[in-house]
């Protein structure tokens, strides 16, 4: 675990302790379970985003994809009566296709990631709204899918299965990002795409794969979100989720310039963000301040990280200077 990640972990624990002292109900198993459920949902989303950010790209359409794929998923199983495993596979495949199209536009047609995914943000939500004619996609009364519900919204030994899913995905993705050749290429491309190309790497394919991974993970979390809310108004469902995911990555030490960040970081970033939301509700802070608290903490976190680095470098420097002065007469 890097120093950065450790700092974030300490921050999470300190905030948690303070909240628990003010309101001990924070530590109730039910509250921890509720919060870790949401950590699972947003964590999966954020890992996908992280893979894109590593390459120096960005994926702004995440929230709209959550809305579109969630709508389709509920529509498939609740209205069209499709078997849920089939619908599940279909949605994941759709996520992969969306990622592939984005990756293709970015690597082959050389469009900027910001532009491509901004258009995606606008288009997918529009399509979702059109699909339901601005209505709501939801389950009818008494419509139940026990297996699916257990997997997505259920708990095992009190732990939400969504959180368990996040842990499994994190481990796999940690290996992919930090131990595999593919992960290494991602970091290299994020730092210097030209050089990676000169080294004979098919950078286009690697970047495309990153967007596909993001698409697949987003699709997965879209299903989780759909099963959590069990109802989707495409006009508002998932709005701003891309910002949550980006914020988690940034808090976790990712640079939007690419080539920097760790998987542990993005998970911790997600945990901190969800802890903050929980805190606002538990401490009775007006919800209007919810976003402000989130923004404030991200800003402070990034600032402290930055200033701490500067401070350490300077102290080192000063120490060295002092040593030099002290040593001088001895020469």
């Amino acid at each position, binding site marked *: 675990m890097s120093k950065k990640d450790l700092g974030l972990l300490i921050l999470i624990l300190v905030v948690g302790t303070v909240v628990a002292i003010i*309101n001990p*109900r*924070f530590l*109730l198993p*039910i*509250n921890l379970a*509720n919060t870790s459920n*949401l950590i699972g949902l947003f964590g999966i989303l954020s890992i996908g985003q992280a893979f894109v950010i590593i390459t120096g790209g960005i994926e702004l359409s995440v929230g709209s994809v959550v809305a579109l794929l969630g709508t389709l998923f509920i529509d498939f199983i609740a209205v069209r009566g499709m078997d849920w495993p089939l619908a599940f596979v279909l949605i994941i495949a759709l996520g992969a296709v969306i990622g592939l199209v984005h990756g293709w536009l970015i690597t082959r047609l050389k469009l900027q990631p910001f532009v491509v995914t901004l258009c995606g943000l606008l288009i997918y939500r529009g399509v979702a*709204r059109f699909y*339901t*004619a*601005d*209505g*709501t*996609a*939801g*389950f009818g*009364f008494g419509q139940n899918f026990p297996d699916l519900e257990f997997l997505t919204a259920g708990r095992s030994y009190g732990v939400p299965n969504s959180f368990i899913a996040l842990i499994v995905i994190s481990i796999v993705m940690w290996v992919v990002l930090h131990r595999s050749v593919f992960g290494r290429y991602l970091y290299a491309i994020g730092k210097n795409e030209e050089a990676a190309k000169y080294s004979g790497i098919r950078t286009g394919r690697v970047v495309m794969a990153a967007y596909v991974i993001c698409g697949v993970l987003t699709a997965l979390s879209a299903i989780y*979100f759909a099963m*959590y*809310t*069990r*109802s*989707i*108004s*495409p*006009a*508002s*469902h998932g*709005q*701003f989720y891309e910002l949550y995911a980006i914020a988690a990555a940034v808090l976790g030490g990712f640079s939007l310039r690419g080539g920097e960040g760790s998987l542990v970081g993005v998970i911790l970033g997600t945990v901190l963000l969800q802890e903050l*939301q*929980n805190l606002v*509700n*538990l401490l*009775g802070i*007006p*919800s*209007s301040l*919810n*976003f402000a608290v989130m923004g404030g903490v991200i800003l402070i976190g990034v600032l402290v990280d930055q200033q701490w680095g500067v401070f350490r470098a300077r102290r080192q420097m000063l120490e060295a200077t002092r040593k030099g002065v002290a040593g001088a007469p001895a020469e």
Partner: protein
Amino acid sequence: DDKPTLAFVVNGASDFWKAAEAGVKKAQGELPDYNLELKYPEQSSVAIQQRLMDDLVTAGVKAIMVSAVDPKTSTDGLNKIASETALFTTDSDAPQTKRVAYIGSSNVDAGKQAAEIAKKAMPDGGKCLGFVGLLGADNAKERIQGMKDGLAGTKIELVDVRGDDIDQARAKKNVEDALVASPDVTCMVGFYSYNTPRIYEALRDAGKLGQITVVGFDDDPITLGGVKEGTVAATVVQQPFEWAYQGMKLMAAYLKGDKSGVPADGLIIIPTKIIGKDDVDAYAASLKAMSGN
């Protein structure tokens, strides 16, 4: 902090709920043994409202009255809350859930009252255009449906409803564009509280105030002003103050074991009212009195 807490959870930030805040405040004055809170979710979305209620339950709230963002399909989520605390619904009901009672009005009826206004203002018929924030939201759909039902068989027709995603600049531009695109329109309906003032202003800017019948919902100051001026035919108002005031007292009584306030069908309907030119002063005065509390 040992007083039990009762929470009123609204469906999104809007001025509409300011009156409910006043109602909660008034109820608080009469219920010193309870903590009364009114909570806004930071966005109008099912996930965020669900999360807010989960956290309130965790924080030990004894009873919740909620205006659910999407009651029809949130059965399980609401039932989960209902299993942990006393749940009441307001604004729009979720009859399939285990909620104790619903207190509020009927949006379908409100839509029908809007039709009444239109019929009275345009005895010779006409062509109406509607404006609304979220076309897909239940309250919008019910009001629109109610109005269409009320207009059935008359020469008045609601030809289209334009949505603006709660962007007021777009709300106003929608009216301006409608004036251009449909010169034959004779009546405009503002389904959300801010739509009527935007219609009023766009008509004023175009010099068409008084030429087009305006049917309003809710009690924005501009809407009431227009009613008084005669440029808005009338407006249909709900009574969130009463929902909150009566609702909070009902919840307190319920917690004390007094279930007499809950009718057998669980429905406490506080009807919507039509505020026309003659009623507007009295209504405005009562509003002022409520917020003065």
